[in-house]
């Protein structure tokens, strides 16, 4: 099995002595779909930001799509995020003043592609998430579920190796929730690895592998 992301003995401490992660070792294989479950404050989000190279661990080794994060420069990590990682957030993080199409095209900005090409790729991605008819709508004109679809299109437009979703259903009702998770799983099955954070057991139930966390430690790691 090829490894998409691995953490070896990873700890993360914040100034002031707050310990978010304690000696964590996790490997996620390429193409796997993993749900990370735990109460708030259990270190789930920190786990995701460390996996997503947005933060470096205080101790331990992190490899993302084969790259050793410790050895890579900030510029190289930015390149990795631009080309190989796709993020989905609870709060969508869409730019309200620009259209859905341009929000998705923004996800490709730092690959250096010209705008015309980015828009074309963005249009295809929006069609894949079922929003081909909402290209010119701005986020305030879309429903919560539609907004999260735009955010998902932004994450998958670059065809990332690893999709990292942090409570993507946190702001949605249960119907929209189920749709979004199904969509993410369906898109990830097309060649990407999916790590999804949730505190909702119903959401986690649909995943083949579940990692349980508490107080920055791994409680269980089950495959169904």
């Amino acid at each position, binding site marked *: 099995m090829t490894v998409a992301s691995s953490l070896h003995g990873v700890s993360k401490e914040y100034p002031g002595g707050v310990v978010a992660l304690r000696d964590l070792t996790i490997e996620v294989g390429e193409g796997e779909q993993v749900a990370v479950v735990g109460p708030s404050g259990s270190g789930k989000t920190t786990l995701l930001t460390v996996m997503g190279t947005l933060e470096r661990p205080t101790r331990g080794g992190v490899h993302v799509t*084969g790259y050793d994060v410790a050895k890579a420069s900030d510029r*190289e990590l930015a390149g990795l995020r631009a*080309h190989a990682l796709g993020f989905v957030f609870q709060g969508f993080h869409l730019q309200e003043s620009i259209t859905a199409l341009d929000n998705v095209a923004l996800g490709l900005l730092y690959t250096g592609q010209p705008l015309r090409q980015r828009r074309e790729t963005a249009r295809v991605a929006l069609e894949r998430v079922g929003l081909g008819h909402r290209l010119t709508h701005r986020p305030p004109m879309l429903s919560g579920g539609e907004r999260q679809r735009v955010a998902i299109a932004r994450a998958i437009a670059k065809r990332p190796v690893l999709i990292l979703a942090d409570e993507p259903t946190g702001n949605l009702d249960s119907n929209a929730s189920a749709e979004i998770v199904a969509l993410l799983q369906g898109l990830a099955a097309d060649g990407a690895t999916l790590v999804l954070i949730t505190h909702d057991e119903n959401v986690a139930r649909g995943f083949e592998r579940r990692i349980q966390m508490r107080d920055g430690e791994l409680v269980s790691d089950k495959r169904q």
Partner: protein
Amino acid sequence: MSAATVTPRPPRISPARLPVSQLLGTALQGPRARLLRAALSALGIAMGIGAMVAVVGVSASAQASLLAEIDALGTNLLTVTPGQTFVGANEVLPDTSVPMIEHMQQVDSDAAVYQVPGANVYRSPLVPQSETGGIGVDAAGDNLPAVLGTSMASGHFLDAVGDRYPEAVLGAQAAGVLRITRVGGHVLVYLGDTWFLVVGILKPVLLDPSLDSAVFISLPVAERMFQTRPHPSEIYVRANVSAVKKVSTLLAATADPQQANGVQVSRPSDALEARAAAKGQFTTLLLGLGAVALLVGMIGIANIMVISVLERRGEIGLRRALGATKRHIWAQFLTESALLAVLGGIGGLLLGAGATAVYAQAKNEPFVIPLYALIAAPAAGLLIGAIAGLYPAMKAARLSPTEALRAS
């Protein structure tokens, strides 16, 4: 099983890139989302640059207007005056000087003025003797206004009648002192125990303002009544335009061959041109006020950018997650600040040009904006924007992406 053994060595990471063309589009996104705020902060810069452009423009217009007047008067006028003796008394030019100068090849025309010593002008014999009003009396030939390039404000200059009868022409300032605004009817002045008829008032003589405070009578009358001797106190010479330099070097020796060293030859338009140059030097104080306005505008932009960085922490975090390097974030905010100020600079150029146009129109002067202002105004905006944006951009780049994402 470890990652290093399982995963084949990956190819080099392709770096995150943000081409300049895309940087500009990215930097425009912020202001476009907050148009009113962007316009107001650019307005601060526009006011400062506008004030400076107006100061420069108004000065340049005033200068252009004066230069145009000088051009109309001609720059080929030369004046010949006697020097002073060792004890400080005025020397006189010999009575042969005028015919000698008239015989010079490159001289187009000339006119002489003869001081009439001891003569004073009053409105009436009842005015106390000591209240002369600082008005001098000069004798002159009939071609003086033509040679000086001036004309009459009222009436006519001395003519053949004036050679025989007591007639006088007033300089512009002298007329003011005597409170005579126009001729006609029977306006008289009391000049050396005789009533003189005022036949004309001159317009101000730009090339030699000292003539404005004089009253002119004809040389024959002066010779008869005041025993004036035909020694010119000043000779005005119009030289051929192509030979002004040459004529000017020969004039002294021609006017007074025996004492050429004492004779002074000058070109009045030189002094006027120097005055025009001085007018073109914009007032430092006004420019300083413009600079203060500009500084306030700069602080305004810096302030807006700092607030913007705080408000847009979420966007900054998102961009970092999407692959932006710190440098990309820095460049985005710096460019945004610079763009705002450049727009302000262009706006200021238009404001300043508008103010100059209104001023020039009101003063009937030509509308002039120095060419360098067209480049300097936006360039100053760029520089100011870059300085104002430096700190906020640095702050934005240093923001930790996770904190930024958590913030919103």
